[in-house]
């Protein structure tokens, strides 16, 4: 079957989609967007978290056919999404080509300088919240959404918002630091 939906602000079309296929599979294998990670395939790990009509969901548990006509934001589109949110205009989405070429390199891979990053991505780099990196995309999408809803979260709020994202390097303290840092920067305190 064919599925038409919006990915990172641009209309996209996926063809020959199997009816039992997940949104995650369509994103990774048909659109070439491997940012959303495929790990547990049962909603336990959160590494495939994307936003579906604004709401964070596990893309491995959404049937591809269910996203017909709906809007999906993946980690590849997070920078543009955050920019649109902060300036309210000008966002033109992220093309598949740009998304596929995205690298956290820029001119300096340790600081992220020269790459367009969402504030939450920059905060993860600055706080050293990335170890093997596998859980990072899902955490970024979940954390970004929480900060949009709740700009001044308590530690308990952060823990709850990220409770569906597992980090098997167990770097949770640095992840907490990163989200606190992003919140402080967003509030103009840093």
């Amino acid at each position, binding site marked *: 079957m064919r599925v038409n939906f919006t990915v990172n602000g641009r209309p996209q079309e996926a063809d020959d989609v199997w009816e*039992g296929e997940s949104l995650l599979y369509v994103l990774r294998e048909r659109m070439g967007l491997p940012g959303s990670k495929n790990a547990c395939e049962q909603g336990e790990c959160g590494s495939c978290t994307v936003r579906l009509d604004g709401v964070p969901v596990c893309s491995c548990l959404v049937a591809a056919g269910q996203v017909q006509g709906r809007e999906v934001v993946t980690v590849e589109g997070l920078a543009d999404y955050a920019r649109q949110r902060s300036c309210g205009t000008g966002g033109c989405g992220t093309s598949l080509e740009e998304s596929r070429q995205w690298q956290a390199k820029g001119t300096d891979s340790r600081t992220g300088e020269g790459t367009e990053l969402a504030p939450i991505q920059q905060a993860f780099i600055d706080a050293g919240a990335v170890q093997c990196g596998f859980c990072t995309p899902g955490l970024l999408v979940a954390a970004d959404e929480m900060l949009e809803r709740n700009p001044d979260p308590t530690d308990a709020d952060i823990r709850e918002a990220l409770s569906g994202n597992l980090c098997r390097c167990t770097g949770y303290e640095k992840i907490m630091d990163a989200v606190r840092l992003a919140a402080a920067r967003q509030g103009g305190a840093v």
Partner: protein
Amino acid sequence: MDFLRPASWEEALAAKAEHPTAVPIAGGTDVMVEINFDHRRPEYLMDLNRVGDLCEWEVGEESVRLGASVPYTRIMENLRAELPGLALASHTVASPQIRNRGGVGGNLGTASPAGDAHPALLAAGAEVEVESVRGTRRIPIDEFYKGVKRNALAADELIRAVHVKKADGPQQFSKVGTRNAMVIAVCAFGLALHPETRTVRTGIGSAAPTPIRAEAAEEFLNAALEEGGFWDNGKIVTPSVAQQFADLCSAACNPIDDVRGTASYRRHAVGVMARRTLTWTWESYRGARRNIEGAA
């Protein structure tokens, strides 16, 4: 496999009548796991996300009519006052991502003894509104669970809504697991005080082939509270009464040993949760009484 996309409730009923083997998919948090792991290969998958009114709820005089697909997140945010037990239970389901998709209709569809909505629905009192092209019926929640992961739905029926009695007193939900998130209940317990009828109702999860009420325990407690004049005098429940209630709740269980816990642990834990939830709800009932009397 075919993917059916009914755009309205009527279309969904017609599709289900035509293809009784079609598997409805709402949040997909049970169905997709089965498909991803090749445990299920339905001939037809029927998306319910396009049926808008399944995501709506209505607060009436006596009860809340909760659309089958209202996600747990909405229940927690919007129905805490009317359905405190279900809101508490909803908050213990999985993680934010799962709660944003999954709902009570899917929990009832799966009818797992470990589903967290069930103890809350049993304790509050509820009816499941199901419909097919043949007509509508309301199934009392006590008659809905038929066996391990089996429910009272006919092949052509769909769940449209659940009618849950609005709380007329304090309600609690308690669940045993290894962490505060992403935990399938080792066992769970729901308790609701109904001061209007001077009754207490219970719901037990994961400690029998189906979710159950501890009816003998309820009868015992109802009689003891009546006899002692507790609803009027607002005294603390006598510890021996609370203990007897807890023991009867344990005795209502018919649990198994599995990876999450042993049968005897489950029986024990249900007793502990019964005593605690009774204490919590009774304290809050006494507090509310004192406030009313203080104001008068």
